[in-house]
């Protein structure tokens, strides 16, 4: 009787504990979302998307240049990180069996663990110093380097998940190995690889540290690719620590926009993974 009571009590306690922790996990995201929406959405207006930042002390203005700047930096990052990561992943999945590949995998995992600010310094030394200027390009290089390890490993994982039977089926018809890879294996893994890339992009979109001394930031339009540019995360950083309440509010708004973009990309990627790729049209 007492034993049974003790068991029930422990059960109830553990159930409560695990339940509370689970709720906390989901709750944190909801609180962040709610808080950002509360503070950010209220400061959000059309000007935010269309106007340049207002001079210090003046009310109003927007972050159009930072939104465009983030887009341009991410574009450069993708052009650099995706091909290298993707083709490296193809190599590891399809041709990599020896020691070399083992070393590459290990090094890739290490690269993934390098703090983003260190990557920023590296991009600074690699691009900013020789060119003697901060630029969109330099910011893109920093984020592109950050994209490589995950692009590589997700490509490898999704290619490996394609059954051997499909490869054999293609090769039994006389297709060469490379033809099999490009016409059967990669298309079969396409939706997985694409969504992996989207998640990867969403992840680096919020990176601030590597941009601080590469893209640097400014308060006006940044023509071309070789001039310093504002980006959303960097604007959030600058405006959040500003002494002006109006800039603080805009930082909230920028945070909200960034979060919505990242969550949107995440949701889209998960939707793409969830769909059985095979059910689609040819």
């Amino acid at each position, binding site marked *: 009787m007492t034993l049974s009571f003790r068991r029930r009590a422990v059960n109830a306690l553990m159930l409560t504990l695990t339940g509370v922790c689970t709720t906390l996990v989901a709750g944190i995201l909801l609180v962040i979302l709610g808080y950002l929406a509360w503070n950010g959405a209220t400061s959000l207006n059309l000007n935010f998307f269309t106007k340049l930042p207002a001079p210090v002390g003046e009310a109003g203005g927007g972050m159009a240049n930072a939104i465009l700047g983030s887009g341009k930096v991410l574009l450069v990052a993708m052009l650099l990180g995706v091909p290298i990561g993707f083709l490296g992943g193809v190599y590891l999945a399809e041709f990599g*069996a020896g020691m070399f590949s083992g070393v590459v995998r290990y090094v890739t995992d290490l690269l993934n663990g390098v703090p983003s600010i260190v990557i920023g310094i590296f991009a600074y030394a690699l691009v900013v110093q020789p060119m003697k200027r901060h630029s969109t390009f330099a910011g893109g290089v920093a984020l592109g380097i950050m994209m490589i390890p995950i692009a590589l490993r997700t490509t490898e994982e999704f290619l490996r998940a394609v*059954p051997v*039977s*499909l*490869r*054999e*089926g*293609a*090769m*039994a*018809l*006389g*297709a*060469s190995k490379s*033809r099999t890879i490009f*016409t*059967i294996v990669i*298309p*079969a893994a396409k939706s997985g690889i694409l969504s992996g890339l989207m998640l990867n992009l969403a992840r680096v979109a919020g990176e601030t540290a590597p941009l601080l001394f590469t893209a640097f930031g400014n308060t006006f339009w940044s023509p071309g690719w070789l001039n310093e540019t504002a980006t959303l995360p960097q604007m959030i950083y600058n405006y959040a620590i500003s002494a002006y309440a109006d800039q603080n509010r805009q930082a909230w708004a920028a945070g909200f926009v960034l979060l919505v973009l990242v969550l949107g990309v995440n949701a889209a990627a998960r939707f793409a993974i969830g769909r059985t*790729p*095979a*059910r*689609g*049209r*040819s």
Partner: protein
Amino acid sequence: MTNELKAMTPKLTREPEGQDHVRGREPDGDTPVGKSTVKLQTADLNFYYGAFQALHNITLSVHERQITALIGPSGCGKSTFLRALNRISETIRHTRIDGRITLDGSDILKMDVTALRRRVGMVFQRPNPFPKSIFENVAYGVRVNGLPQGSSLKEVVEKSLHRAALWEEVKDKLHDSALALSGGQQQRLCIARALAVDPEVLLLDEPCSALDPIATAKIEDLLFNLKSQCTIVIVTHNMQQAARVAQETGFFLMGKLIEFDRTEVMFRKPTQKQTEDYITGRFG
């Protein structure tokens, strides 16, 4: 013993004229079995997975335009042997073939592997349609190897689906995903895909093991009709299937070819004790 086998064999033979096939009289007047020419031949074939020798000195002749079945317990090397015949075995690392395999007298180990695989098609144990449309599945081999002169891709696809007895079931949904088909349909699609490049030899690796009896019967009928057009080698776990479809049968055990003869002889009067034991179900 012999009575047992005699009692078994007629049951296994679905076609009423099945006995005649076994004796070598083709309904469509093709060359009788035994006099037909050798299409594919192996001589002292050894096969290794790393240090493990999976096949020992296999010498076997596959005759043109008939069905040759390979039977034996799991792990006996029959699939390994089949996979050596189109060199798909090479896709696995650390494998090695020695000995001779000839197709129409020329050594396949010296041939361009893609040219070889165009001539020697293969259907696998589990249906493996590509995650593409039905049409694209059949068209794949043609796209790889080029279209035969004077025909269109559409014609080739339609003809191949007819040959695989699948056309009627799929003609209205050629552009739907192949993965929506049933298992039996998928396997016939894989046969159509292999036939689209017009192979001289078709290798089938336990093509019915993942299928139900009705789908199996359809595939067997199909093989029976196909053998007038190409040479077929089928690996099967199912002895009744070998007895039903094959003119010649080889029995593998532990990497060795124990016995190879006309199916009728193999199932009625095997000369080797091990063959008899296996066929009568004493082991394996």
